[in-house]
């Protein structure tokens, strides 16, 4: 295949997609096992939710009204924003971690063509991600009741193409406006903020309570239905395209294709030049503010400080950390609200949720500090016990969580001592156990490979989630005064005993 298409845009696209596919395989544990699990989950979800929804909507005809137009526009805007955040982030990564771009740029192929293929592959990847999410609902609904709704896939693909064009344009614009070094940081923060804002909006019920949030939605609905608020011309295009109206769908798709090829041919060469400049910009890094060196440190302090410095200086990791910590906000808010009231069940559930999320956040941060190690041999070759490094790295991983959770747990212990003590114990246990799993199943790799949890084994991730869930469940039962709390706690302990690896076993696994 690659032989037939070599040198053409299609050939380059094939190359890019093959690389993306192999990255997906690598992320799923290096084989098809992970993908089979994902497929099974999708099939179950299709059967449980998609098929009933298909029958439920069998006699329903979606009206093209003011409300549905606004809802579809807002929905598509949300999807497009998330897509742009992904493509922008990938575009800037392309500028800095160019991988094979140097090879491709030295080949006798116009850079414009190379970049068009790369961004098209990016659009395909983004499209597939979202298509995978909607398929369990959309496919049964289309088969059972509304075949024309399959047009949504084309809308999604066109939106992904448009998002890739936006990502390319925005990264080029940012590069020109604020320079090479700041572009990456801004793009990464922007991507994190977009992701986090959608998460926080989705938690409006948690923040405002059911009755108040219903009031907010009612106000938003009333505003949408207010006739004095004029819809812009063409506002109904996305909805009509999604419903499969041929001409509108064709127009939407053609528009996206024209936008994509227009932007990539207009900015392709400039992006290539920027990529070359970005490479030079890295060697011209400005000196950082000189600090007095601290030579009087122990191995623990030196490692702890090193980890914090490295975390802080990596914009992608900082945004990752912030994003993870943000997930705790709705739960924290729920805990505060319910602790003041007398909603025992809600408080117990929130405390359990907090314990679960603490484990998840701690696990992610511990994964970064423990496995994102650029000089593993330096540590292994030093006359310091590995336990010192592990403790220092875990301490650095836990610090952002402690800063966030300590005031909340202190408040909880003060207001609702029983729930507070169980939540405190649960959070500590959850953080420690998830940290230990990351020590036992560490996979040292270069920090720049840690944009996401790449390389993390499915097994370790699943084990982390299971232990944290068991501890969360135990906390909930314990807060309710239910003696069955002991059962999930014992199961968590048993699981940890099964998962445990000795130093020798860890060393052996690292050798492999």
């Amino acid at each position, binding site marked *: 295949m690659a032989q037939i298409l070599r040198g053409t845009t299609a050939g380059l696209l094939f190359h890019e997609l093959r690389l993306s596919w192999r990255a997906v395989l690598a992320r799923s544990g290096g084989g098809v096992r992970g993908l089979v699990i994902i497929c099974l989950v999708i099939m179950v979800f299709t059967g449980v939710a998609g098929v009933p929804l298909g029958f439920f909507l069998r006699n329903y005809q979606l009206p093209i009204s003011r409300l549905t137009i606004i809802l579809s526009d807002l929905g598509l805007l949300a999807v497009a924003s998330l897509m742009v955040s992904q493509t922008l982030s990938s575009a800037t990564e392309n500028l800095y971690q160019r991988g094979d771009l140097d090879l491709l740029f030295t080949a006798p192929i116009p850079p414009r063509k190379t970049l068009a293929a790369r961004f098209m592959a990016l659009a395909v990847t983004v499209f597939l991600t979202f298509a995978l999410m909607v398929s369990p609902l959309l496919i049964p609904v289309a088969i059972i009741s509304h075949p024309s709704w399959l047009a949504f896939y084309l809308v999604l693909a066109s939106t992904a193409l448009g998002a890739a064009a936006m990502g390319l344009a925005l990264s080029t614009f940012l590069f020109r406006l604020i320079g090479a070094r700041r572009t990456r940081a801004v793009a990464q923060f922007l991507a994190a903020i977009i992701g986090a804002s959608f998460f926080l909006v989705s938690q409006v019920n948690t923040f405002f309570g059911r009755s108040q949030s219903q009031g907010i939605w009612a106000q938003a609905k009333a505003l949408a239905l207010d006739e004095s608020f004029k819809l812009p011309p063409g506002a109904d295009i996305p909805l009509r395209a999604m419903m499969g109206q041929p001409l509108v769908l064709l127009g939407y798709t053609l528009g996206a294709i024209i936008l994509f090829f227009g932007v990539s041919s207009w900015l392709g060469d400039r992006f290539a030049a920027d990529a070359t400049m970005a490479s030079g910009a*890295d*060697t*011209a*890094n*400005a*000196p*950082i*503010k*000189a600090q007095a*060196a*601290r*030579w*009087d*440190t*122990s*191995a623990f*302090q*030196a*490692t702890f*400080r*090193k980890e914090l*410095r*490295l975390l802080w*200086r*990596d914009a992608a990791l900082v945004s990752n950390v912030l994003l993870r910590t943000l997930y705790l906000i709705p739960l924290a808010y729920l805990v505060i609200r319910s602790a003041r009231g007398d909603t025992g069940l809600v408080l117990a559930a929130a405390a359990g949720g907090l314990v679960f999320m603490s484990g998840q956040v701690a696990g992610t941060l511990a994964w970064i500090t423990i496995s994102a190690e*650029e*000089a593993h*041999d*330096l*540590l*292994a*070759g*030093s*006359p*310091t*016990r590995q336990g010192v490094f592990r403790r220092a790295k875990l301490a650095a991983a836990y610090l952002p969580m402690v800063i966030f959770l300590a005031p909340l747990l202190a408040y909880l212990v003060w207001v609702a001592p029983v729930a507070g003590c169980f939540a405190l114990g649960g959070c500590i246990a959850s953080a420690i156990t998830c940290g230990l799993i990351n020590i036992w199943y560490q996979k040292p790799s270069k*920090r*720049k490979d840690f944009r996401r949890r790449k390389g993390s084994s499915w097994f370790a991730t699943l084990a982390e989630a299971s232990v944290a869930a068991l501890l969360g469940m135990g906390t909930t039962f314990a807060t309710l005064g239910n003696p069955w709390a002991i059962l999930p706690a014992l199961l968590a302990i048993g699981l940890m005993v099964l998962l445990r690896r000795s130093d020798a076993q860890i*060393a052996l696994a690292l*050798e492999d």
Partner: protein
Amino acid sequence: MVDALVVADLNKSFKTPAVQGLDLVVRTGELYALLGPNGAGKTTTLRMVAGLLAPDSGSISVFGIDVLKSPLEAKKVIAWAPDEPMLYERLTPLEYLEFVAGLWNVPPALAATRAEDLLQTLGLWEDRNRRCEGFSRGMQQKAALAGALIHDPKLLILDEPLTGLDAAVARQVKDLLQARVAAGATVILTTHILEVAERMADRIGIIQAGKLLAEGTLDELRARTAGQGGTLEDIFLELTGDQGALRA
């Protein structure tokens, strides 16, 4: 005087044997070059000496300390510098040295003095507050070398220390290594640049398929081979049997 390194009947296999019954002695205060074709087992051997890899069998002793029984004691006197610099790109050279000094528990005053000396000697003092991510390969190699020397190791193990360095930086590194040897330290290095071994090494070991083929000074090696008066390259090719491949 106790030998710097004594390796006896060392074995290590991955899927295939990498090191097979290796015996090696490096005397204190010498610069020893370990040569061999790609995949000969040089790096595996040195990683075992540095305590980074456990051997399947055999013994390793560094200045009389059993590396397998007392790894932490042995590591106190060893420095390991692989061909790929062990650096943190987002740390400055000064911060990197501060970190490494902490790992080896170097007394604060001594660490500060040594860091300044090393960075001055290696021409990195002006760049001490710049992050290593923007450094050239040579600068990164020098920063890593400074890290290896901050605790004043008695045994310095370098795997391909001159790979990718320009002539000026290579000269700086060679001068520094010779100065260390003159000061009493022991240096073991691997290199594919045979001229470097020929000029710098007190003794040379040639390894192939995990076994030591020959060892000695250049003259001793010449005497062992048929082609009298040849260069190290001739000796190396004759011993490793690569001449045919070279001619082809």
